[in-house]
């Protein structure tokens, strides 16, 4: 059976610099999968290749067997691939509710509607409000993004992605920049993601990775270095040597 999301021999080069090398990666339905590796290993590049931000130099990206290698970002989103960004990419001057509204409206095909007020789309407003409630953001619904603490902004990133009703959710360092006192809110949000969504999380916080992931892929220098269940990865001496170090003791 085809994996939900799969790459075959995926490569990306910038001139002579190879940032992704022959990546064969599978993300199964309902997976809780982590992608780890040292800085510059090519993790975010892989997310960019999966979402269509970057075109690959070679290889293929497949969603349930459908070849999406040449598909633009918008088509991949429509097929169910959503992402969050390592550095917040939000509509900073708009309210939290507006941020999520825009995502939900696009998914429902209302984004191009020109002659009906946005406020009359009660279905979009209700769904966006519901998502904010799920992520305990309803208290911030009317606040502009730039008025929110960074940790809450990270939650809005997730709310926007969930507004797209993804089948695959790619979380690029969701805990980056969050003070440890606030990180439990994010951990709860990630733990509470619906089981039918396959989640790939890129993270440097090994505590989060080992609590969350059922499978871990390790990338080094643009290639997959190791893959397996958390216990196996933690016990892998080579992985410990190149990346985990003492973090594997958690």
């Amino acid at each position, binding site marked *: 059976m085809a994996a939900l999301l799969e790459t075959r021999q995926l490569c990306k080069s910038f001139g002579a610099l190879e940032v992704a090398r022959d990546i064969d990666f599978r993300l199964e339905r309902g997976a809780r999968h982590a992608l780890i590796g040292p800085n510059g290993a090519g993790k975010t590049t892989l997310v960019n290749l999966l979402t269509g931000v970057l075109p690959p130099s070679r290889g293929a990206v497949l969603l349930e067997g459908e070849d999406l290698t040449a598909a633009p970002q918008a088509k991949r989103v429509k097929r169910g691939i959503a992402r969050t960004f390592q550095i917040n990419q*939000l509509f900073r001057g708009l309210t939290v509710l507006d941020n999520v509204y*825009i*995502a939900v409206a*696009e998914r429902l095909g209302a984004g191009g509607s*020109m002659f009906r*007020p946005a406020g009359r789309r009660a279905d979009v407003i*209700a769904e966006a409000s519901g998502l904010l409630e799920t992520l305990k953001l309803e208290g911030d*619904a*009317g606040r502009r993004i730039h008025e929110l603490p960074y940790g809450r902004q990270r939650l809005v990133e997730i709310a926007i992605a969930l507004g*797209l009703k993804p089948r695959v959710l790619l979380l690029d360092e969701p805990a980056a920049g969050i003070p440890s006192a606030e990180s439990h809110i994010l951990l709860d949000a990630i733990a509470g993601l619906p089981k039918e969504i396959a989640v790939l999380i890129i993270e440097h916080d090994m505590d989060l990775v080992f609590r969350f992931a059922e499978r871990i892929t390790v990338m080094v220098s643009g290639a997959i270095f190791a893959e397996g269940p958390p216990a196996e990865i933690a016990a892998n001496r080579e992985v410990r040597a190149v990346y985990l170090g003492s973090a594997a003791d958690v």
Partner: protein
Amino acid sequence: MTAPGPGLAAARALAERHRVKWWEAAPWLAGIALFFLLPSYLAFGTQLVITILFALSLDLVMGYAGIVTLGHAAFFGAGAYTVGMLAAHAGWNEPLSGLVAAALVAGAIGLASGYVLLRTQGLTLLMLTLCTMALLEESANMGHEYTGSFDGMPGLQFQAILGLFPFDLLYYRSQYLYALVVLFVCFVLVRVLVYSPFGQSLTGIRENVLRMHAVGAPVRARLVIVYAVSAAIAGVAGALFTQANAYVNLATLGLDRAAGILIILILGGYGRLYGAFVGAIAYMVLEHVLAKAYPTTWQLGVGLLLIAVALYARNGILGIADALWRRLRAAVAR
């Protein structure tokens, strides 16, 4: 009864955002009052209304969609020359259908040029918008037989509006009301657009284009559409200019006009609908008053005002008004 929670209040605010506020009647009442109270200023008023319409079209692309352009006069000029050439060479001098023709021609130029230009951004886009305008200006300059070249096309004749209200080049009574009604119709259209999900997606593009791609929005298509709509409205403004003044010349297509309208919008406050009104009124009234008092040095005053706005009021006059209003409310709450 308890107050609604912040989530519900935000949802309600979003649901009611498009509703017409009581104060929105003010510019239209002022416009009608000008007609009755200052009949000797109707020529000035007509130019003011046309400038507001042009600034409004620019606000749609620059203020809402974040497309920075220095060539918006291309569309104003396209509309102006369309009705001028139709009247001079084809005997098509019915004003309302002339406006429609101008909108279609300017919109088509906006669509075609936007399709090419909007692949770029930043300084490249800025330069390309300027180049598009320069190409049109030079075409108008070279097509002497059709455009009158540098001299333009003076003494154009147009039929009475709806067959009832003849254009009046002495007092501008018909022109003023005609321009005001056209501005109102276009304003309603722009208002509907900016409060629609489409308008909200434009704001999203302005705020963060990377995120808009990531939510699956067809970003370029949206930008090309709004660019064409804005071009059509600028074309209507240009057509009004030709019809109201009974002439068209190269000044309708020049950098002076393009830069002037940009200044007006920045002065008023962009991305907020009424910035076009406030900016046009402030700029043109100041220009009028200063030019009367200091016929040779009046531009110095306008320049100083612009420097002050650029340094201290980046959100324009409406931004200052907003800040004062917020302070007042905070003081009352204390």
